């Protein structure tokens, strides 16, 4: 069982990090999590991002569930916000999520295959 002692360890480590971090100009990942997104498979996608970010210990990247933007047929939709730049990905599965993470969030290069413009209806 994951114990309270483990949680305290995580707390202590996080408290140390906060003092070192300073201003946070990090990357934001938004995952569409309305009925359409959930039924298209948004939950495992979001979970994948959480896993990848913690694995790599990237404390400047946040993941947030958001609502529906009205393009239900091309869900799961993921938006990546880096500073002023917003990239919208559609039909994201766990594999694509992994690519977005390594190529875009870490590598800084947009994954062209899944950006929303390529899937015009």
């Amino acid at each position, binding site marked *: 069982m994951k114990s309270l002692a483990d949680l305290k360890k995580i707390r202590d480590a996080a408290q140390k990090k906060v003092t070192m971090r300073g201003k946070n100009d990090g990357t934001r990942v938004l995952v569409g999590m309305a009925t359409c997104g959930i039924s298209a498979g948004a939950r495992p996608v979001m979970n994948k991002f959480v896993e990848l970010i913690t694995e790599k210990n990237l404390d400047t990247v946040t993941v947030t569930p958001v*609502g529906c933007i009205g393009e239900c047929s091309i869900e799961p939709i993921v938006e990546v916000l880096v500073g002023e730049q917003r990239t919208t990905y559609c039909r994201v599965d766990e594999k694509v999520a992994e690519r977005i993470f390594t190529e875009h969030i870490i590598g800084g290069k947009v994954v062209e295959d899944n950006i929303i413009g390529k899937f015009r209806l």
Partner: protein
Amino acid sequence: MNELSLHILDICQNSTKANASLISIIIEESTKKNTFTIDIIDNGDGMDKETLERVTDPFFTTRTTRKVGLGISLFKMAAEQSNGFLTILSEKTKGTSLKCMFELNNIDRAPLGKIEETIAILLLNAEGADIVYKHVVNDLIYIFDSREVKEVLEDVPLTDLNVIVWIKDNIKEGILNIHKEETL
């Protein structure tokens, strides 16, 4: 949706949108009564009588981006398929409570699935409602309360992903343990 925990995620997003600060999710499995019940109780804005009457209608939604709202209708269908039912009580400004009942051993009852992922995502919501998750298997109980975790965390945010992973593991193991104990 092939997991009940996906429905729970979907339904709880409504609580979040209704500005709830506390969402309680209670799962009860009873082999004696052959029932599997899910209760979701929030302290959000609640609904008036007129809205409440229309929520199970798939062509009703509060959303402006599209014209259908399938969340509750799908959950209701899942319950009725396995010889169960879904009821909602709500009072304006007080909150909303939903009860969904299934036959435990019904072949059409979907498994609960990864409830720990559902709770992790709910905690990552920008609105940040607290979550109490109670899972009862006959006489055994597992409880998770995000307020208790916050107390331990002091100034560290609950949305720290290392914390989220800890919560996920804690819930997963907690449920596994009560199921194991039950079969002994």
